[in-house]
């Protein structure tokens, strides 16, 4: 049984249809990437999974149970952690406070335990440790991205949804970030990764889907996708991955 399954999902923003019958699945322990151009519906797919958008058609199944009407708070408590586009750091809270609140989906964990876990997150992202008492808005884009992922991990997610983690970051920082994503995956966290940077995403993924204007067009292993002429032309900028 797949950990996450989307069956014929259609989503709308008002009258505009963003997703048209999307079906995909993510198995436990897998790192699956969702590729596509701007406006293809990648972020909408993640928002539909995490409950920010209620689909107009279709079902989202998590561990076999439908969750698409549960609402974001309940979905977070099931163990789905969504690190959204634009990082969405709480600007007026400190780095440490942002991380601590990542565990808000877990009930009854003592503060002391959470502080300890926050320290462990600083070991994964040592660059942000020295800013632990700085307010969120003072961080650079790359630091905010690390903070967003650290906060997402505090949820102890069974499924981590990452939306364009490489957006706006310098190439070296992207390399570091993807090394970390590989590490997180090794710890047994299932990941659904949305990316425009197809080369980078396919270098860490087990499988990938390509989304075009709200419809899934291609599915396959990184090797298959890298070998697909259409995919290469559209998302890999013609050079070899």
């Amino acid at each position: 049984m797949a950990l996450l399954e989307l069956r014929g999902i259609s989503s709308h923003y008002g009258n505009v249809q963003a997703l048209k019958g999307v079906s995909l699945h993510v198995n436990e322990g897998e790192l699956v990437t969702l590729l596509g151009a701007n406006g293809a519906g990648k972020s909408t797919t993640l928002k539909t999974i995490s409950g920010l958008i209620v689909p107009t058609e279709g079902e989202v199944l998590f561990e076999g149970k439908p969750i698409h009407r549960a609402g974001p708070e309940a979905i977070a408590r099931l163990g789905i952690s969504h690190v959204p586009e634009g990082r969405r750091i709480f600007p007026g809270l400190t780095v440490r406070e942002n991380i601590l609140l990542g565990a808000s989906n877990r009930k009854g964990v003592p503060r002391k335990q959470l502080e300890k876990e926050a320290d462990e997150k600083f070991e994964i992202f040592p660059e942000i440790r020295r800013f632990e008492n700085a307010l969120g808005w003072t961080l650079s884009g790359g630091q905010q991205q690390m903070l967003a992922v650290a906060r997402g991990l505090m949820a102890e997610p069974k499924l981590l949804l990452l939306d364009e983690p490489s957006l706006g970051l310098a190439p070296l920082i992207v390399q570091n970030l993807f090394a970390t994503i590989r590490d997180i995956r090794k710890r047994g966290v299932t990941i659904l990764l949305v990316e425009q940077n197809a080369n980078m995403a396919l270098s860490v993924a087990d499988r990938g889907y390509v989304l075009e204007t709200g419809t899934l067009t291609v599915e396959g292993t990184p090797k298959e996708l890298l070998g697909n002429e259409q995919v290469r032309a559209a998302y890999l900028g013609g050079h070899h991955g």
Partner: protein
Amino acid sequence: MQILFDNLQVLFQGLALGSIYSLVALGFVLIIRATNVVNFAQGDFAMLGAYAMVMFFTGLEWPYWLAFIASLVAMAIFGVIFNYGVYYPLRHRSFLPVIISTLGASIFLQNTVLAIFGPQPRPMDKVLAADGITVGGVFLDSQYLVILAVTMAMVLFTYVFFEHTLLGKKLQATSQDKDMARLLGIPVALMISITFIYSAVLGGLAGVLVGPILFVSIGMGSIIALKAFAATIIGGFGDVTGAIVGGLLLGVIESLAAYHISVPYKDAYAFLALFIFLLIRPSGIFGEKVSEKA
């Protein structure tokens, strides 16, 4: 020497009055931060608190402290009702319908109290039986002392609650980015309910404390709310520290100007101060701390 004492006396009264504005302004700011809406019934929270005290203490003749606590509990319950009756049904709308809803609630509350208690202003006992103490040449009225002490305690409590507890941080997170708070599993509706409860209790407390000084009347909330609103703008719109400092400043300006210039224009000085601030420093003393979302 007498001039110094007189001025200290006025300063003391100004600070006490300003404390009341601060408490109501704090309630304003907490709701603004949690919901992005100005609650125009905030002053009526003070009025309701005072009338709850009238009902429990004068009406039911409960002991003072029991009536005091019962009034605050009643305000807490009222905060929940207010949230679900006035704000919650409109939470997905823009700020305008919500503001109109709070205005409507204000009119409704004032007229309901009018229907029950009648138009006569009611007197209220002071918290302490003693008149006050004289330090140097300055007479410190016991009620004013209580107001200052309670305000300080509430400010301290608010600080510890918001800055040093996870619940306080969740409330802040909710006010900064509701969707992200939801994604983290923070129960946003509950957080907003807590904000309304806290805000209603703060307002009610201000009403109970100021009752013995101003008399308890239907309109007492309106003038306090106007001053408290001016205080939030002077302090920096949406800023917690600003609300407290703004309230105190306004109380002091008002009292000093009334003493030195003219008493009948007492209320006008607060708005003159607001006017000057809007011209010179429209962002208020503490400005906007949280940067706008990009």
